[in-house]
């Protein structure tokens, strides 16, 4: 323990070197803005700025990119809250409550909650990272396709109650998301599937962002347009020092779900292939299930912002673990970081901790500092973000439409996807008017590919025997928890009725 402490202090000192400190600051700031652009997330930021880092030593370079990764995680929340468009898949769940809060004039509270939850999530997970990296890496190796599938079941189970009150329409929404996720090449069989009208473009599949920006960007804007008739301004908020203080007092409302989200996020993030998106969604679902007033979720409950934000920041730290110790990226962003490390001549893998301790501990030290810098920057910038909402809607709306188009194009480099975005956005709007919930479709398209692939990989390796999911302990535990979560509302309802009967009888 003592040695870890010494290494950590050395790492912290390293991150306070002027160059590294400047890198942290620049990285956070750049990440914040890139993340706040609809469509552009940490993946783009890290990929694009990677060559820039060849100018500085490797430790400073990874510190810069890690800070950018952090900043972008928060930036995603900014566009989710202020514009209602998830900046990246990791910030989808933040829209559910962040958007209603902004619409009812509480954007500052939502942004504040997101900043603080991110800070708590990031810090908790760095502490866990510092203390338990090696055993967690060993645990991650035990995760095969069976466990991945069980984890996905668990993720779906946490969404129970996330849909609307119309059951067949909710089912329809989940299913269409899962089917759209299957479009494109099937890696298991090597065959193309659902190539509509023989268009080659569909071979790549329908990217999650195209659907999310279509539905939340185009669809949401049209929806707002309909309700405001284009005349009314969006809600304006004052933001001053007193507001900060009163917002800070609100922390107690969401601290519970923040802690839950932090641990969950870190754990899910450490598993290769899972990443921050399922973590954020699961955290939201759990916060809702266990909340006293679960019904207020989706209508502007501050815990609904804090839960996914703490989880996605915690997961972004967590996903560094498999990258550093196994050389396996836990998220698309860490995949690019991995490429960067190879170019700098560092070899991520089981030996990295012992062979390049300066690098690893410098990075870990910088994560503590980056967390702090991000939260300070964020809170300082809230007034600027809020100013966006004060723009006249007929000016803001076209700007957002353009950002949606540019954002989609910048992510996939295809005009085809911008057309698809418009089509899906209009469909989403028309269906939403008829009480079809859209969130389940967006969730399903994120988790669908992983679910199907892990299911089929498991069954191929067990020669088609479905018992394989129950025979393996970790997968069994995940499945049992999933079953528990699904039956929890029914059981708790039953218990309540029972208690009421008992009381009536007395």
């Amino acid at each position: 323990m003592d040695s870890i402490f010494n290494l950590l202090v050395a790492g912290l000192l390293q991150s306070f070197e002027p160059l590294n400190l400047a890198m942290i600051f620049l990285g956070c700031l750049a990440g914040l803005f890139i993340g706040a652009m609809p469509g552009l997330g940490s993946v783009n930021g890290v990929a694009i700025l990677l060559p820039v880092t060849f100018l500085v030593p490797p430790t400073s370079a990874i510190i810069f990119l890690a800070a950018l990764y952090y900043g972008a995680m928060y930036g995603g929340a900014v566009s989710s809250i202020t514009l209602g468009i998830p900046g990246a898949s990791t910030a989808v769940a933040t829209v559910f409550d962040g958007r209603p809060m902004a619409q009812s004039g509480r954007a500052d509270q939502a942004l504040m909650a997101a900043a603080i939850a991110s800070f708590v999530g990031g810090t908790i997970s760095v502490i866990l990272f510092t203390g338990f990296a090696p055993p967690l890496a060993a645990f991650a190796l035990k995760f095969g396709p069976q466990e991945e599938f069980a984890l996905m079941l668990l993720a779906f189970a946490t969404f129970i109650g996330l849909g609307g009150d119309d059951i067949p329409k909710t089912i329809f929404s989940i299913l269409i998301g899962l089917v759209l996720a299957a479009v494109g090449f099937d890696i298991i069989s090597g065959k193309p599937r659902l190539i509509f009208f023989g268009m080659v473009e569909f071979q790549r599949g329908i990217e999650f962002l195209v659907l999310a920006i279509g539905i939340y960007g185009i669809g949401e804007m049209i929806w707002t347009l309909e309700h405001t008739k284009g005349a009314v301004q969006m809600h304006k908020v004052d933001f001053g020092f007193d507001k900060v203080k009163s917002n800070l007092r609100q922390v107690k409302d969401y601290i519970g779900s923040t802690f839950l989200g932090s641990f969950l996020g870190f754990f899910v993030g450490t598993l290769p292939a899972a990443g921050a998106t399922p973590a954020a969604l699961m955290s939201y679902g759990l916060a809702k299930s266990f909340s006293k007033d679960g019904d207020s979720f989706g209508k502007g409950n501050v815990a609904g912002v804090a839960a996914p934000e703490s989880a996605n920041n915690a997961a972004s730290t967590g996903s560094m673990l498999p990258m550093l110790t196994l050389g396996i990226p836990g998220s698309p962003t860490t995949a690019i970081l991995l490429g960067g490390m190879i170019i700098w001549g560092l070899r991520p893998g089981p030996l990295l901790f012992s062979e390049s301790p300066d690098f690893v501990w410098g990075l870990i030290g910088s994560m503590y500092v980056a967390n702090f810098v991000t939260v300070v920057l964020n809170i300082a910038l809230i007034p600027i973000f809020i100013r966006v909402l004060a723009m006249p809607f007929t000016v803001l709306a076209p700007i957002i439409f353009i950002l949606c188009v540019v954002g989609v194009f910048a992510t996939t480099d295809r005009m085809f996807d911008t057309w698809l975005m418009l089509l899906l956005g209009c469909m989403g709007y028309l269906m939403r008017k008829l009480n079809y919930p859209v969130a389940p479709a967006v969730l399903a398209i994120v988790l669908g590919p992983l679910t199907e692939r892990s299911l089929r990989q498991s069954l191929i390796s067990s020669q088609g025997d479905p018992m394989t999911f129950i025979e393996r302990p970790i997968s069994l535990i995940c499945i049992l928890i999933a079953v528990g979560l699904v039956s929890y509302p029914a059981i708790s309802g039953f218990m309540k009725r029972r208690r009421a009967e008992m009381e009536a009888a007395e």
Partner: protein
Amino acid sequence: MSVRTAELFMAIAMFLASLGLMWTVYADDLAIGWVAGRGPGSGMWPFWLSFGMAGASVWTLVRWYNGVTPESRSDDPYIDPETVFLVGVTVAAIFFLLLLTNIIGLYFSMMLFLLFYVKFIGKHSWPLTASVMLGMPVATYMLFEVALNKYLPRGLPFFESIFLHIDDFRYSLMY
């Protein structure tokens, strides 16, 4: 069209779309059943999930017939006339934004889009319109092309060449 009719049409359309998806999977000759010793075939997932979509649509239709959903009892207009105009114009404007991007490039079509939207829909003043019209393309260029190294669509060669001069200038300043 009332909300009640719209729900009927939507459910029927979605039912047909589900059948279409099932047909696509079937026609592509993908294995829609359980392959012995290997688990689900490549078409099983999309085929049976589409089947589920069809089922959910039928369920919605039954509920519509029995008047269970609030929508099936609503005679309000699906989209009121005032909104039809605003929404229709917006969607058409985005449509032309994308269409023109292929011809005159994103920057010029973006300017036309902003001109149309801010001036003619929003009825804002000329100075505001002009500043948004110029500010947005410049900001986009600076952020996406200069800072993030993206190459946004510039349309046909004639329009692209205009931007190549701007690029030349930019690279001569810094690279």
